[in-house]
Structure formats: structure tokens, C-alpha cells
């Protein structure tokens, strides 16, 4: 078994975090786990954020739906024949993706 003290210390940290979490945050965490991270997407690469601001994204908008989003989240994004980063999931709500892609 992993050094038990490491696990127990980690659990103590988890318990502290739960204490400081609002009910809304906790519920969102629960729903994201239960129903997937459909909705909000955090774009990790700064270059991609710049791209979004400066370029039309219409032709690069990914078809997002409940079944496909998790596979997309794991893929490297290629545009203008360059790899510009990877998307990463975060806790979110659907409308944010809609707003981002609109």
C-alpha cells in the first residue's frame, strides 16, 4: 500500500477544500462528473486565445455535442497547418461554449 501517511495527509487536504467550497461549486463538480464536462471549455494555449480574438473562427469551430466533446478535448488542435495547442476540460456550463463559438 502506498505510504499511508501520504494518503491520509492528502485526504485531510481534500476535507479542507470541501469545507471551503460553496454548495454551488460542489453541485457543479458533481454534475460535471456525472454528466461530463459538456459546456465550458478552457483553451490552455495562449496562442489559441490570441487566434480567437484576431481571426474568424467560423471554419475552425468544432462540432460540439455531448458525445463528441470528450474526444475533442484530448486532441491537439491544428489550424493554419500549425499545431497551436490542446484544449483542456474545466468545470463549466453549456452557455459558455455557445458564447465562445458564436
Amino acid at each position: 500500500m502506498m505510504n499511508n501517511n501520504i494518503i491520509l495527509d492528502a485526504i485531510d487536504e481534500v476535507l479542507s477544500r470541501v469545507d471551503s467550497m460553496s454548495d454551488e461549486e460542489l453541485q457543479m463538480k458533481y454534475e460535471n462528473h456525472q454528466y461530463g464536462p459538456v459546456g465550458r471549455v478552457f483553451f490552455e494555449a495562449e496562442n489559441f486565445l490570441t487566434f480567437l480574438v484576431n481571426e474568424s473562427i467560423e471554419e475552425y469551430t468544432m462540432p460540439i455535442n455531448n458525445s463528441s466533446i470528450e474526444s475533442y478535448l484530448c486532441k491537439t488542435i491544428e489550424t493554419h497547418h500549425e499545431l497551436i495547442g490542446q484544449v483542456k476540460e474545466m468545470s463549466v456550463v453549456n452557455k459558455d461554449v455557445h458564447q465562445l463559438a458564436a
Partner: protein
Amino acid sequence: MKGIHGTCSSYADSIRANGFRYSHVGLRGRGVYFWGYTLDDLEAYGRELAIAWWRFAKQRGDYAKATKQNCSVIFTDLTVESQDILDFEDQQVREKFVVYSQKVYERIEGKSQEEKISTIYDLFVGEVENTIGKTFSMIHVKVQAPKTYKKLLPIDLTGQPSCYVIKNLASIKINKFEVINDE
């Protein structure tokens, strides 16, 4: 470690062809569920539990759409390093998990109690993993034997059976399949 899995023969055929699939359903969180033991002498005990689970699942209607609904038992070796196991039967881990559950259970709304319990396990494991910076390949947890279990020995002697929830499918090596036709 050894793990025994009971299911219907249609699903067993699929497992034989494609290996185990990661299940998102389970009262102790996501993973593949086995009745677990370490001593070969306890194989019959695990086998009977696997058959009991199949009886329970069949009664529940889990195999209603399967073409072959009779029981198959799958015997496996589970190769997991001890540091990759989160043991809920360690008393301190269990007690802290109970505290975690106290802190979250009433604050979240889910479709059902089962869904909440399953998700609380997953959230807890995930939070611990994030904190430590590693993932667990398996969790060990004691569960109640299915009501359909035909006891080989009284529970007062055996205690509740061990359940291994495998989260890393590469840990599973299938040794043999047994088809049970007399159930």
C-alpha cells in the same frame, strides 16, 4: 491478487473478444468490479459470489436483451502494485471517507441515492489523486454479498467479501472462462 467476475454468457463472449470495458456504473464508482481474494483456496468462495451476482443482475433485468443469459464466470489475475491501491478498508481511510461523505452528501442533489453514492466515491478518489499527483489502479472495498449468495460459510466467519474495483484495465489478465448451465 485474484479477481472473479460474474456475468451472462453474451457479455462474457464480448469480454473474451474485446477484453473488459470500463464501466461508468457501479455503487463504488467507475471501474470493473471483481470479487477479490489472494489465496487460491478461496477461489470457490469468489466463484460463488460471482454466480450470486449474476443471479442478482438477472433478476434485476440487466441481461434482458442478451441472447445468452446463462451465467459465465471469468477468473483473472490482477497485477497491481500495492502503492497503486486505495484501500477503503484501512480504518483511517474509511473514517476520513465517512467524514468526507458527511460533508458532501446532503449538499448535493442527484437523481438517486445510488447515483450520489457512486459519484461521491469517484469524486473522493479523484480529489485524493489530484492532491497526491498520481492515479490509483484499484480500490479495495468490502461490500455486502448479494442476497442471492448461497453461503459456503457463515458471514460471521468470513466477514463481508472484498470487492476490487479496477480502474486500470491493463492490470487485468484473464485466466479462464467457465460457463454455468445448471442455474
